[in-house]
């Protein structure tokens, strides 16, 4: 994955001369797939990115959505698949660290993390090691850095055995006037490097530098260098506080995190976005190890670093704020008017590199890679699982599909900031839309304050509030988050499967009373040099675009992770969508995935069309992955979203769950085991209807007296509603198909994951 001959030639053309070794290293990392999106950019342009509330769309570190009342929400998702495969704990931990920097670099206080995770089956020891390590890495870093992890996914499938997927979404809250972009401006301004010292870690993490134009020596060296990094959540916590403090005091004109491609990326992107140049003194960069070469310094991916652009006048104040938070701060660059990124060794020392900044950032090649529809696709679609023998015991199959993910999320602090109204385990997380310093709590004191600083604030938090004027009037009161992916669906039909995911994520947030307002995506695909993979990617993007347009949900950011393959086998195409929803008025907590004895159970939404193609049942119970997917009526779906949110907010329901993986059967089963209440349901013909999957459906539990109003509301919305039975009793009963005790189902559900992981003690 180094530079190709054509790329090297293009660099020579751009420079009008041969690049030197350092310059080549800088282009190699910036033009890597990871940084430049050279294979996917052409397709990503087809996504709808505009909408009413979008303050910042794709292209910046995070998307930003207006939540009203002077408050905005920043959101971003990213993958850390490959590092997590080799060192699960640190790979996942540094994934959390990286995505958080994307959020606070926008001026937002990170308030939530979500972690969609995909591993191989736990029957394999390596997958167990990866799964346990990843979960403890997210727990270890996320809890310590002080950002709650409020939801995610935990999926096991052979498709991910050699290449797990560790995606991390983060979300932050900011007063709109604190919004800041990753831009350098003002000739003469200074670039200040904040945070950790730079070491030889992660060099070339985004690309292996070795291929083009490097000596054998360098190759040998590069191979020895550790590509895995150790995260330091304590450093990151201090960085968060220091950066937000700097922004509150208006001491930084621009700020940028250091992620992939390290200093090269941060300096060239800020300069390019601001239309300026920058001189960078590598000799000024604090190093963790002696003897580092300039190219190592410029491409190191050492964690927990930020770059702030400040005026010379403010420098002392900046250093004072950083000193207070015990964050190292060093001037490493100067903004110039030249448009060039120049690397020098000492301000009066030799110029080691001199290239137009914009060429690193924007002139990476754009590939229109060949695409081919997979040859076996029709065959796989024709192989419909409804032809399989019906299960001998639908009850046993149902129980086998009930897996409680709480072993995972009980390891995550999901309550910090007192915002979490619906915790992990629900259809979507629901958080009050507040954060320290954003809707200020009237605290006084010296913590965060610095004697001698001009702001005149008693505390950093009070300063944030006073400065922002964001009292929250008119702002949405809560936000909902859901992440959804489904490799089974997408491998059968990437376009339609992705549209279904958008629909599912939107319905998930509706189930906690929110209206979907923005989407981010993490496109996890195989090797883009395989034409089938490019076809899958292109199709998935079209499906996402189509659904987002129809539902009027803008795509505000994303991340593309390619080369997810092992032993020559690509993963199933696995786009993951992260949906943000807003709730204007939060009066009562939504009822959640529950049922109440005596209540009616109504199936609301699309009727007919459910299929076992690509279903959880076919995969889990029959190891079968063929068939076709159910249709999606986006117009109906749109009406259903409004209807569901209205019902939830009206407080008319005592339980609700969207029908997703595993169909109506699993939806009912989950409602039962979560509330310890049984049910009796009739009118479901067979396992096909019980476990078949189709979009646009929810099961609601409603007291008999309130059922009439709910039915009337569905009629008014033009949405079908069927009374399928009642909640109550000690058994899960689907007449003619299922009869299992609540106790048995609950015990199996609760212990399934720890059992598969081989955890000796099942924590309660």
């Amino acid at each position, binding site marked *: 994955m180094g530079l190709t001959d054509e790329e090297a030639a293009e660099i020579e053309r751009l420079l009008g001369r041969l690049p030197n070794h350092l310059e080549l290293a800088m282009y190699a990392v910036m033009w890597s797939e990871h940084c430049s999106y050279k294979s996917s950019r052409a397709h990503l342009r087809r996504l709808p990115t505009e909408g009413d509330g979008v303050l910042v769309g794709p292209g910046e570190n995070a998307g930003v959505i207006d939540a009203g009342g002077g408050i905005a929400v920043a959101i971003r998702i990213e993958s850390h698949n490959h590092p997590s495969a080799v060192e699960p704990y640190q790979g996942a931990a540094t994934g959390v660290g990286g995505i958080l920097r994307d959020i606070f670099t926008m001026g937002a206080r990170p308030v939530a993390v979500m972690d969609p995770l995909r591993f191989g089956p736990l029957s394999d020891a390596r997958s167990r090691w990866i799964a346990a390590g990843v979960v403890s890495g997210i727990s270890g870093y996320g809890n310590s850095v002080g950002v709650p992890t409020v939801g995610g996914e935990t999926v096991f499938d052979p498709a991910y055995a050699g290449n797990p997927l560790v995606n991390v979404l983060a979300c932050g809250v900011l007063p709109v006037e604190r919004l800041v972009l990753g831009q350098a401006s003002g000739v003469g301004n200074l670039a200040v490097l904040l945070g950790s010292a730079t070491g030889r870690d992660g060099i070339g993490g985004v690309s292996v530098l070795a291929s083009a134009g490097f000596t054998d020596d360098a190759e040998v060296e590069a191979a020895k260098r550790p590509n895995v990094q150790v995260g330091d959540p*304590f450093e990151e916590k201090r960085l968060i506080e220091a950066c937000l403090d700097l922004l509150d005091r208006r001491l930084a004109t621009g700020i940028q995190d250091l992620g992939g491609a390290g200093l090269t990326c941060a300096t060239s992107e800020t300069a390019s976005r601001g239309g300026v140049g920058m001189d960078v003194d590598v000799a000024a960069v604090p190093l963790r190890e002696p003897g580092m070469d300039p190219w190592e310094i410029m491409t190191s991916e050492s964690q927990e670093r930020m770059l702030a652009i400040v005026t010379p006048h403010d420098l002392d104040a900046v250093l004072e704020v950083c000193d207070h938070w015990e964050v190292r701060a060093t001037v490493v660059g100067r903004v110039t008017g030249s448009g060039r990124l120049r690397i020098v060794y000492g301000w009066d020392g030799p110029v080691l590199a001199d290239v137009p900044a914009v060429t690193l950032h924007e002139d990476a090649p754009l590939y229109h890679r060949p695409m081919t529809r997979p040859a076996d696709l029709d065959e796989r679609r024709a192989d419909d699982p409804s032809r399989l023998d019906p299960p001998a015991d639908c009850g046993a199959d149902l129980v086998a599909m009930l897996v409680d993910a709480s072993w995972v999320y009980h*390891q995550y602090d999901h309550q910090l900031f*007192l915002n979490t109204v619906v915790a992990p385990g629900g259809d979507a997380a629901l958080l009050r839309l507040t954060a320290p310093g954003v809707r200020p709590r009237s605290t006084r004191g*010296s913590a*965060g304050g610095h004697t001698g600083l001009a702001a005149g604030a008693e505390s950093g938090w009070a300063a944030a509030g006073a400065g922002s004027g964001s009292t929250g009037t008119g702002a949405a009161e809560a936000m909902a988050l859901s992440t959804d992916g489904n490799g089974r669906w997408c491998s059968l039909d990437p376009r339609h499967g992705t549209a279904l995911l958008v629909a599912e994520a939107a319905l998930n947030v509706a189930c906690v009373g929110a209206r979907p307002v923005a989407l981010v995506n993490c496109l996890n695909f195989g090797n883009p040099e395989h034409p089938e993979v490019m076809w899958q990617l292109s199709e998935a993007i079209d499906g996402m675009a189509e659904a987002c347009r129809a539902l009027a949900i803008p795509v505000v950011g994303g991340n593309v992770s390619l080369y997810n393959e092992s032993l020559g086998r690509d993963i199933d195409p696995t786009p993951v969508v992260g949906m943000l929803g807003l709730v204007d008025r939060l009066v009562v907590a939504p009822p959640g995935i529950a049922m109440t004895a005596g209540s009616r159970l109504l199936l609301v939404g699309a009727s007919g069309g459910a299929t076992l193609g690509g279903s959880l049942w076919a995969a889990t119970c029959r190891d079968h992955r063929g068939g076709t997917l159910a249709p999606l009526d986006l117009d109906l779906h749109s009406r259903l979203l409004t209807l569901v949110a209205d019902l939830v907010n009206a407080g008319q329901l005592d339980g609700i769950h969207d029908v997703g993986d595993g169909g109506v059967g699993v939806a009912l089963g989950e409602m039962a085991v979560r509330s310890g209440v049984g049910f009796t349901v009739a009118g479901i013909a067979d396992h096909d209807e019980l476990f078949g999957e189709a979009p646009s459906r929810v099961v609601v539990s409603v007291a008999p007296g309130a059922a009439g109003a709910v039915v009337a509301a569905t009629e008014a919305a033009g949405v079908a509603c069927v009374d399928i039975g009642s909640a109550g009793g000690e058994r899960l009963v689907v007449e003619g198909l299922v009869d299992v005790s609540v106790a048995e189902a609950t015990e199996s559900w609760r212990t399934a994951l720890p059992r598969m992981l081989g955890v000796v003690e099942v924590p309660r």
Partner: protein
Amino acid sequence: MAPRVGVVVFPGSNCEHDVAAAVEGAGGEASLVWHADATLGAIDAVVLPGGFAHGDYLRPGAIARFSPVMTAVADFAADGGPVVGICNGFQILTEARLLPGALQKNRGLTFLCQPAELEVASAASVLTRDVEVGRRLRIPVNHFEGNYTCDPATLAELEGEGRVVLRYVDNPNGSMGDIAGICNQGGNVVGLMPHPERASDTLLGSTDGMVLLAALLGAASAVRT
């Protein structure tokens, strides 16, 4: 005048704003106190909040206990001032020897964030003052090192002197004697692993934490008058 509660902030603390908000919700007045300050200012009670002071590196509380503010906290405690350590704050109090024992890794070797059913075991502390012994409270825990450990003599002393303040009904972490919270001999220094501030609003699922915070404010007022 409302009782004034100082909430100490160490680098890496993260529950300070939550505690301050809950204290204010209970009718107190909260202020944040930076760990490097050598004085506490005009306050009637101190809370060491949860989080990861100094990243919990080496051991939770091992570095934090050397912060300048801890001398002031110790003096305040010695004068009978109410001091409460929540979670990481409890760990810091044990490292500072303001409370006996230590908090070890959870028996199951995982971090645990979940609701816990607690029973009030003693009303002789600033946090449980006037709370009925035996009362059940549902308050979340959120820790990796919450497994209370001490030598048998200390345990006997704690039990004998009624200094076990809160117990788990269903022990989540292997704590000796199901201990969730203890106090010093004076009852004015209390450490507990559960987070009362996280049970401070019906929207969060429980308001039981307010029972404890209200007791603390009561004790704080009593100290002042």
